[in-house]
Structures are given as structure tokens and as C-alpha cells.
């Protein structure tokens, strides 16, 4: 029996479902020249979504639909960040899409459905909702990667993403079925209760391994990272921006729901798996990134290494560890939007600004954007006083508190290795002159893009002063 209360708890999601459908319909009835209307409507829809999420925020965890849907602080933080990241993508993508004649209504409705999937996923209270959310997120994302139908690279990336994504969701589904077999329930709290007393602990552990694989795939952690660089490289840049930020946030929610809420009693097993994958991701991500010449691929490998840092937090299964991981993911998402945003701002028709060498001498031609990119790079490298530094401190602290000093030291050494490729971007921009005969890079005159990108980047500096409240929010999400 569905009550009004159930619907109220789900209000932001229900609203977004309706709004996404309306945007889809709205776009059908306007001509191509009026597409800006869709753009602004979509942004307003998302802003209202943020308002609804924050406004309806209950003081404690509430559930709906018999525990299938959970609304708690962690979900709220992730939803707000996902919505912000999507708004950033909408604003920054518009000039890029228009240049390439890809400025289509589908872009908006697909993104909104995908966001809806993430929102369901992070609020999941049962394995069914997890799976539902994951697929609802993933299917529009595959289509988005293939948005540029003319591009072979784009189609190839979409196919790769689709095949590997399906494989991962198959593995996840298999793991879920094993867990259902061992515990007899799909409800995450039910699994938690049954896990301690189950007659088939080995079956459960077997299922756990598959779940971890599915989660690792979402994160793009080594050794399930193969899809990431190709998708980053092949996907249209705004979509790559989306793929780099949003699924990582979703994955933190996914990991928390499945591993802690569902399989908390087996924390000892899964935290070792996460720690090993963290170490592998850190090493592979940072070392391979050095060899990249394509900026988007470099960012992909850097993402892999950052996921290692998120795992550092998760491998300490305490509220402190989770809040550190959550904080890191939020921070990471907002750093990636800056890095991609600068490329979006500099790319123009027939020139993607994808190679690191394309950025040569940027400081001479457009010092403001060079500065923004430098902020993003220093922040990703975790150098104070930027926001990425605080995030790194928190996850390192979580790992040390969790007794994984070795992992913290691996992370530190990898961070030093990683420094090299972040600094290379800066040195190319500041210390090298552009190649002869290259057209000067010029930023797009789009005011919204410039303004929002600047706010986003300067926020990475300003956040050092406001980390306290955000951290308090993240900690409150896990009851600290």
C-alpha cells in the first residue's frame, strides 16, 4: 500500500521524473533555433531539484516503500553534488555542443534520466533499488557517449562502455542473487541482520566478491579500469566531464549501501579487497598517466588514481572513513569539472584541445584560463592551499586510523609520482611557447561558461576556508 508519506519522501525523484518527461516533450515542440529555451528550462529544473532535496531534508533517516527507498544525509549530499555537477555540465557544454551541431534536446533529457538513476541508486534500501538505479543511470549514459553519431571514436567508446558496463552489471546481479540465496532477503538491513547468522557464509562471501567487482567497475578501479580511458577519450568532452564526476559519486553511495549497510558484518573481508584495489589503482593510475599525451586520457588515468584515494577512506569501515571518502568524492567531482571546463572553453570547431601540447603557451594567450587550469591541476595533485589537499589529508588520516599505514605510504609515494604529470600540464601552459603557426587559443565568449567555470575554480581555493561545514555535513551523514 503506497501512502502519501512514501510519495513525499520520494518527492525530489518523482519531481525529476516528471520534469525530465516534460523537458523531453517540451523540446519536441520547439524548433532547433529555440533550443536555448530547453537549456534554460533544464537548468531551472535542476535548480528546483536541489531546492527540493535540501528543503525536504529530514533530521534523521526516513524510509519509504517498505524500506526500498531510504532518505538520509549521505544520499542528500550525493544528490546535491550530482545535481550541481550536472548543472555545471549543462552550462559549460552549450557552446561546445552548438559548435559541433550536437545541440539537441536529447542531451538534456538523457542526462536528467541518468541523474535520476543516480539519485535512486544512492537512496537504495534494497538490492532491487540498487540495480534499478544503476541501470537507469547507465543506459542513458551509454547513449550520451554515442551522442556524436558521426564520430567513429565516439561510437567505439559507447560500445566499449556498453559491453563492459553490461558485463559489470551482470556480475553485480549474479552477486546479488548469491546473496539473496544465502540470506533469503533483498532488503539491505535484512541482509545485514541475516549475514551474521546465515548457514551459508561461504556463499555470501562468494557473492560479496562479485559485488565488490561490480562496485570497482563503477569506480573504474584497477583491475576493472580498462573502459575508463577509452570512454574519456571517445566521448564528447561534456559527456566525459559527466562520466568523470557523476558515476564516481554514485559509486560512493553504491559502495556504502552494499558494503556497509548490507554486508557490514563482512567488513573484514571486503576492506582488504578494497585496500588492495586501492594500492593497484594508485600505482597503475599514476604511472600510466605519465605516458599520456592526450589530455583526456591523462585525466582518465588520474581519475583511476583518485579512486584509489577514495578507497583509502572506504577501507576504514568507520563513520570517519566513509565521511572522508564522501568528502573526497565530492571534492573530486568539482575538481574534474574545472579541468574539463577549461578544455570545453578552449575547444572550437575543428579543434578539440585534447592534447596536452595544445595547451602550450596558454598563459601568453589567455592567462585567466591558464590560471584556472593551474588551480585544477594543483588541486588534483593535492597541494595546499587548495581543496584537494584537505580531501587527501582526510582519506590518509582515515587509512592511518584504520591501521593501514602501509596503504597510506603507498598513496603518498604515488602522489609524488603523480605530481609529475600534473606539473607537466602547468609547465606546458606557463613555461613553453606555442608551436609555430598554431592559431591562438581563444576562449569562448560565452559569459555563463566563463563565469561558472571561474566560480568553480576559485571555489577550489575558497573551500579551504569552508571545509569545516562541509566536513561536518559529511560526518553527520554517517552519524558522527
Amino acid at each position, binding site marked *: 500500500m503506497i501512502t502519501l508519506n512514501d510519495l513525499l519522501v520520494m518527492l525530489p525523484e518523482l519531481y525529476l521524473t516528471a520534469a525530465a518527461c516534460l523537458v523531453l516533450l517540451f523540446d519536441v515542440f520547439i524548433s532547433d533555433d529555440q533550443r536555448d529555451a530547453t537549456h534554460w528550462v533544464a537548468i531551472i529544473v535542476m535548480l528546483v531539484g536541489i531546492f527540493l532535496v535540501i528543503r525536504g531534508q529530514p533530521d534523521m533517516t526516513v524510509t519509504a516503500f517498505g524500506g526500498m527507498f531510504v532518505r538520509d544525509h549521505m544520499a542528500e549530499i550525493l544528490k546535491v553534488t550530482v545535481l550541481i555537477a550536472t548543472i555545471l555540465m549543462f552550462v559549460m557544454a552549450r557552446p561546445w555542443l552548438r559548435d559541433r551541431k550536437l545541440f539537441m534536446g536529447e542531451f538534456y533529457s538523457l542526462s536528467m534520466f541518468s541523474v535520476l538513476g543516480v539519485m535512486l541508486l544512492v537512496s537504495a534500501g534494497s538490492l532491487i533499488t540498487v540495480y534499478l538505479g544503476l541501470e537507469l543511470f547507465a543506459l542513458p549514459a551509454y547513449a550520451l557517449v554515442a551522442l556524436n553519431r558521426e564520430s567513429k571514436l565516439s561510437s567505439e567508446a559507447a560500445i566499449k562502455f556498453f559491453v563492459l558496463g553490461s558485463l559489470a552489471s551482470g556480475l553485480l546481479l549474479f552477486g546479488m542473487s548469491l546473496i539473496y540465496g544465502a540470506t533469503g532477503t533483498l532488503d539491505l538491513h535484512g541482509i545485514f541482520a541475516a549475514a551474521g547468522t546465515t548457514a551459508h557464509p561461504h556463499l555470501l562471501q562468494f557473492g560479496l566478491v562479485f559485488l565488490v567487482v561490480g562496485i570497482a567497475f563503477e569506480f573504474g578501479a584497477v583491475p576493472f579500469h580498462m573502459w575508463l580511458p577509452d570512454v574519456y577519450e571517445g566521448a564528447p568532452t561534456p559527456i566525459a566531464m559527466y562520466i568523470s564526476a557523476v558515476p564516481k559519486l554514485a559509486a560512493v553511495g553504491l559502495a556504502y549501501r552494499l558494503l556497509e549497510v548490507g554486508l557490514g558484518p563482512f567488513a573484514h573481508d571486503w576492506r582488504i579487497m578494497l585496500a588492495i584495489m586501492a594500492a593497484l589503482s594508485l600505482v597503475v593510475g599514476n604511472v600510466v598517466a605519465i605516458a599520456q599525451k592526450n589530455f583526456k586520457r591523462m585525466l582518465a588515468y588520474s581519475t583511476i588514481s583518485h579512486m584509489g584515494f577514495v578507497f583509502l577512506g572506504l577501507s576504514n569501515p568507520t563513520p570517519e572513513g566513509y565521511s572522508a571518502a564522501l568528502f573526497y568524492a565530492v571534492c573530486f567531482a568539482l575538481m574534474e569539472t574545472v579541468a574539463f571546463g577549461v578544455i570545453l572553453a578552449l575547444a572550437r570547431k575543428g579543434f578539440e584541445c585534447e592534447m596536452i601540447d595544445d595547451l602550450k603557451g596558454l598563459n601568453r594567450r589567455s592567462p585567466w584560463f591558464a590560471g584556472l587550469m593551474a588551480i585544477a591541476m594543483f588541486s588534483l595533485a593535492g597541494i*595546499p592551499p587548495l581543496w584537494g589537499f584537505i580531501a587527501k589529508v582526510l582519506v590518509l588520516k582515515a587509512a592511518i586510523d584504520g591501521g593501514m599505514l602501509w596503504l*597510506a605510504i603507498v598513496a603518498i609515494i604515488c602522489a609524488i609520482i603523480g*605530481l609529475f604529470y600534473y606539473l607537466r600540464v602547468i609547465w606546458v601552459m606557463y613555461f613553453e611557447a606555442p608551436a609555430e603557426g598554431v592559431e591562438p587559443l581563444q576562449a569562448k565568449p560565452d559569459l555563463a561558461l566563463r563565469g561558472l567555470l571561474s566560480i568553480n575554480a576559485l571555489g577550489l581555493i575558497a573551500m579551504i576556508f569552508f571545509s569545516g561545514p562541509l*566536513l561536518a555535513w559529511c560526518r553527520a551523514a554517517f552519524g558522527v
Partner: protein
Amino acid sequence: MSDWPILSILTWLPCAGAILVLLAGDARPRVARWLTLAFTVITFALSLLMLSEYSAGPGGFQLQEMHRWIPGINSSYHLGVDGIAVALIVLTTFTTILVIGGAWQVIKDKVHQYMAAMLVLEGLLIGVFCAMDALLFYLFFEAILIPMFFLIGMWGGPRRVYATLKFFIYTFFGSIFFLIGLLYMYHRAGTFDLQTLWAFPFTMQEQSWLFFSFLIAFAVKTPMVPVHTWLPDAHVEAPTGGSVILAAIMLKVGTYGFIRFSLPITPDASQYFAWLVIVLSLIAIIYIGYVALVQPDMKKLVAYSSIAHMGFVTLGLFIVYMLARQQHDVQTAQLGVQGAVVQMVSHGFVSGALFTCIGVMYDRLHTREIAAYGGLAKVMPWFAAFWVLFAMANTGLPGTSGFVGEFMVILSSFTANPWIALFAAYSLIIGAGYTLYLIKRIVWGTAPTREAAAMPEINTREGLVLGAFAVAVLAMGVYPWPLMHLMDSSVAQLVTHLMTSKV
């Protein structure tokens, strides 16, 4: 007046100035220069105000400010200064003005960015000396790398990319182990507050690990042998202003770290491993002195001599344990620490002046080869006079600032162990050797080329900058009492703290 957050103003005013200077843009270098000068002068004036607010008698940490920063991890924005910090802050603000003056017409490309980087650097360095929260200290300590990276990389010499990367990765490598140490301390003590950490009873084993995590960071920054190799490269490639800041202030950040972290937080481990630091210091003093002797490049020579001089600082700091703990000679132990700090300040003036001189010569002939110069006394008598004065200070001639610190350190190490004093004092000979040899080759004799013979005499601006350095060097050499008085109580408190074991 005293309820003003003067330390915050000192830290952030230059950073705010940097933003204004950046807004001045590339097209208006004059505006950028004057704006920067105005900001550095105001900051200097404020630092003098701070000096007058600080009462040296009671010592301890004064002018404290404390705000919540990241409550989730118990880290606060906590500033405060003791006598040592006050001295180093005034050194910073003073030197920065001279650096700006020195770079006035020399930097022609992207003036606004250069000036902004300098201002940010100044603010961050002041922040390091004020920070009383370990995480805040680390934040400033690391953030210094960013403006320095740009300074060397954008206005540096031909191999600047190599030098910047080496510099950045070396120092980042060092300090990140420091971070692990900090996090471990937090894990145990539950706070980043320095005063709590000083009192926290770490076990011997913990202290040993922490000691090495600190040592790596500060040894790289100081720099101590064998992690000193980044310094000559960084110096050779850096523009003059960068070299001056690097030698005069940034190196002090490393030894200041020893004073703030290694000595008080891990006193027992520091005592146990003091021999290691002392041996490394002696190697720096003697071996690096010999290395300096054979350098054909002036900047490298002075860079190596900096490493040797910083050896005196670390020697003075760690000789304390032999004196205070084993021989219970607190008086002489204080002398050692005081000597180390005086040496830090003096080296700031002397090396800053020497690098400025080299910059002046480089502007005229565009080479740093010693062999390209000669007979400066004939063509640039004023300049030669300055050169000789600073060179004398570098060798530690009585009457100059260089003498005071070295003498105090040697005196206290003699009480601890005459052999150590013998080796340390030996450096006076080598120091005199390489400096006089340098002077002989460039100031006396005849000019090797026609260009060298036609070098124009220093102008008023350069004269003012060098004159200010000269006044500081002489004043400290003749009358060091104000400086010693300023930090007397602070040093006494530090040494008293060291006397008590934590285990």
C-alpha cells in the same frame, strides 16, 4: 592596537596585494611595480609594529589568534609568534622589499605575474612563521612551492624546467612524509595544536619514527647533505629575486621546522639521533665547503656556501642535547640555539646580498662564469666595495653579522666536544678560502674582455638595495644585542622544554 589581528593581516595583506597586482595586467608593468612596492613597504611597517607589540621580556607566544577552521579534524586557524618567529618575520618583510627593488627594471616579461608571485610568497612565508597549528603550518610550508615553481619556471635560465621539477619534486617528496607524521600524531593526540603536541608524551619508538618523518622534510628544505642537490640547480636557474628569497628565507623554513617540530615534539629521539644530524652538519660544513671552492659559476659557489652555512644552524640546534641533557650546561646550550638563530638571520642578509650582487653583474654581462669577470674594483668601485663587505661577512669576519652566529655555535660546540668545534671551526678557513678566491678573481686583477672592462657602475636603485643589506649586516655584526634580547626568553623556554624527557 593590540586587539588587531596583526599576524593575519601580515599574512594575508601581501596575498591580497597579489590579486590587485594581477588585475593591473600585463600592459601596465609600472602600476604593478609600484603597487607591489607599496604593499611590501606597508607589510614591512606592520611587521615593525608587530615587533614593537611583542614584549621580549616574558617571551612565550604572543599576539595569538585562534579561530575554528576544520573542527571535524580538530584543526584550528591558530597564529602566534615568539621571539624567534618575530625575528624571522621581520627578516622576511625586509628582504622582500629589497628583492622587489632589485627586480625593478630587470624583470621585463610578465611583470605583474612576477610581482604577484613574490607577494604571495611573502605572505605564505610569514604564515609559516606564525602558524601554531601543525596542519596550518604544513599548509603554508607546502604552498610556498607554488609561487616558487612559477618564479623559477617562468623567469629562470635555460634549464629551468629541469630545475623547477627537481626542486618541486624533491621538496614535495620531503614534506609529504612530514604529513604522514602529522597525521600519525593526530591519530595519537587527537589534535593538530602545536602546544598540545609539544606536551604530548610520545613513546620512544613513536618519537623515532616521527623524528625521521620530520628530518626528511626539513633536511630537504634546509638543505642538508645528502639531499642538497636540488639547491644549486634551483639557484642557478632561478631569476635573481627567486634566488634571494630562496637563500634568504626559504632555507630558514627548514631549520625553523626543526625548532618547532623536531626539537620540542621528539626531544628524546632528537637526543638519540643528534649525532646523526651533527655528523651530517659537519659534512655539510667541510665537504660542501670544498665543493664550493671549485665552482666556476658564481651562483653555484654561493649556493654551496649556503649549504655549508646552514650546516652551522643544524649543528647549533642539535648540539643542545649534548650540553643540556648530558652536561646540564643550560647556559651554553642556549648559546648554541641562539647562535643557530642568529646564523639564520645573518645568512638571510648575507646570502641575499650576495645573490643580489650576482644579479647586478649578470644584468651587465649576462654570464655567471667567474672567469668572465675581473678588475671590478677599477670599473665599479662602489659595487666592489659592497662585494668585499658581503664576502667578508660570508667568511665570518668579526664586525659583520656572519661572525656572531658562527662564533656562538663554535663556542657552544667546543664546550660539548672540542673535536666537533675543531671540525666546525675548520670551515672558517675553507670559507675564507673560497670567498677570497672568488673576490680575487672578480674584484682584483684585470678585466678579461672589453665588455667586462666597460661595465657601468651601479645606479642609485641598486646602491640603495645593496646599501640596505650592508647596513643590516654591519648593524648585526657590531651590535647584535637587540636580536639576542628579542629571542632570549623564547630560546630559554625551548631549552627548558628540551631538558625534560617525555619517556
